[in-house]
């Protein structure tokens, strides 16, 4: 076999192959059976256990449009979980470029629930059930300041409304009224909460991270500093499934839909690694 051809294969063929492997499962949807990782289940259980009469869920985010495909389904799944359980939600952005994505996610999930609502009490009302606090730089300042006063660091919300005029932010004074902060990130913001807010204020912290950063977070799950994480798109798909199964929701699950393409791409990657290694050793032996 002519392994030299493989060793010097134009990488553009590999890009083309990868594109096909991703596109075909999107065009021809397939059901992929998947388990739930312990860290995802732990996060779900912690959010589910929030006493909605005393505490809110805080979703903090620092992802940007570049990682929307991975992080956005996490926000959607968390909001669905919170709204289905009627847990009040506070949202803040730690990175300016991602701020409009949170607005989009909040409006989308609010519309989904309000389309099914039968009364005012049953609806998701902005200011009562959710508040988007907006963005305050630099990240460390709101992370620390929210331990003393959420309204102090966010005098106005994302839409310019004074937070002291909103029902939810009138009773959520600081981290004492936050059941867990779930930081959705393309970087390492859950660890900022773990290092700065948790030792000082004792707030529980969870995370939703891009897969590339996931290995950094597992040690913190083992020590209990992180209550759980969603690791990449797979973690988002698992959380989507947990929420959909528990609350019998039939809304679109973007991360779950992508799992067939994800699996196919991984198989291709493994095949390419094996072929690449065989080609490497075969051509090296011949040269020596």
């Amino acid at each position, binding site marked *: 076999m002519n392994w030299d051809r493989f060793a010097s294969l134009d990488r553009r063929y590999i890009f083309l192959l990868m*594109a096909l492997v*991703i596109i075909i499962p999107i065009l021809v949807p397939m059901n992929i059976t998947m388990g739930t990782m312990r860290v995802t289940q732990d996060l779900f259980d912690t959010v589910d256990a929030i006493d909605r009469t005393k505490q809110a869920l805080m979703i903090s985010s620092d992802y940007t449009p570049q990682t929307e495909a*991975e992080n956005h389904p996490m926000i959607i799944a968390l909001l669905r979980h919170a709204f289905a359980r009627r847990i009040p939600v506070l949202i803040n952005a730690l990175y300016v470029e991602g701020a409009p994505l949170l607005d989009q996610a909040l409006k989308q999930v609010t519309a989904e629930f309000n389309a099914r609502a039968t009364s005012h009490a049953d609806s998701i009302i902005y200011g009562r059930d959710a508040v988007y606090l907006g*963005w305050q730089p630099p990240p460390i300042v709101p992370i620390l300041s929210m331990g003393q006063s959420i309204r102090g660091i966010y005098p106005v919300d994302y839409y310019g409304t004074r937070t002291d005029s909103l029902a939810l932010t009138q009773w959520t004074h600081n981290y004492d009224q936050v059941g867990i902060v779930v930081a959705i990130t393309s970087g390492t913001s859950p660890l900022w909460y773990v290092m700065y807010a948790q030792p000082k204020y004792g707030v529980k912290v969870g995370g939703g991270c891009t897969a590339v950063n996931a290995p950094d977070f597992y*040690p913190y799950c083992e020590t209990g500093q992180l209550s759980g994480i969603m690791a*990449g798109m797979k973690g988002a798909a698992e959380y989507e499934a947990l929420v959909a199964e528990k609350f019998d929701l039939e809304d679109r699950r973007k991360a779950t*839909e992508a799992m067939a393409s994800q699996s196919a791409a991984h198989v291709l990657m493994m095949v390419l690694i094996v072929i690449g290694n065989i080609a490497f050793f075969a051509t090296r032996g011949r040269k020596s």
Partner: protein
Amino acid sequence: MSLSTDIWVWIGAFLTFCIYSFLYKDNPLYKFGEHLYVGVANGWSLAFMYLRVIKPVMVQPFGEACRITAQEGLRAELFNPMAPANFLVIIPGLIGCLYFTRFIPGQAWLVRFPIGIFMGYYTGVAVPAVIEGSMFPQMKGSMVTLAKFDAASGGGFWSGIFAIIVLLGVLATLTYFFFSKEHKGITKVGAQTGIVFVMIAFGASFGFTVMARVSLAIGRMVFLLRDWLGIVS
């Protein structure tokens, strides 16, 4: 198939192709997409920063304090940093403005003040936070304790075994990165074991990286096939 009629979706699709054209080779369309992104992101961030932060946090409280002073005279509460109208916000504002002295020949040294304050603040906050929030808890988590073998304390046989493996991994990896002594004898065994743990960590990290990059590609493909071309429902 139902092509999108939204102009922004078409612009998004065009820019996606601009960026992906780099996979074929570097070209002016890719450069256009790249520079446009950087420009738009910076412009948007600046506008957002002014409208959502500088204006409500600094301009409005200071302007309101000036207005109250002009109408009702100077009051003590106008110097309360938590009040919606106060003069104190001008102090960090002026310190921040010193960053612009970089552009004034002969006065550029003044930029050291905001940089010094910034670095001092962050160092003061970060050092104890890293020790208290990361280093000590992680060291504690690496310890093998009887509780990790005790089912009543949330542990068990396998939990204890994994705790031992973690401890060995930590010690072996630290030995590998210990360069003050030549890796001979026991340290050689430790360092070689450390390489195994490091390689396993790299492998896991690479696997996750593949998942991350594929996820982003899937996101774009779904956008093109669903939002733009309307092929996928």
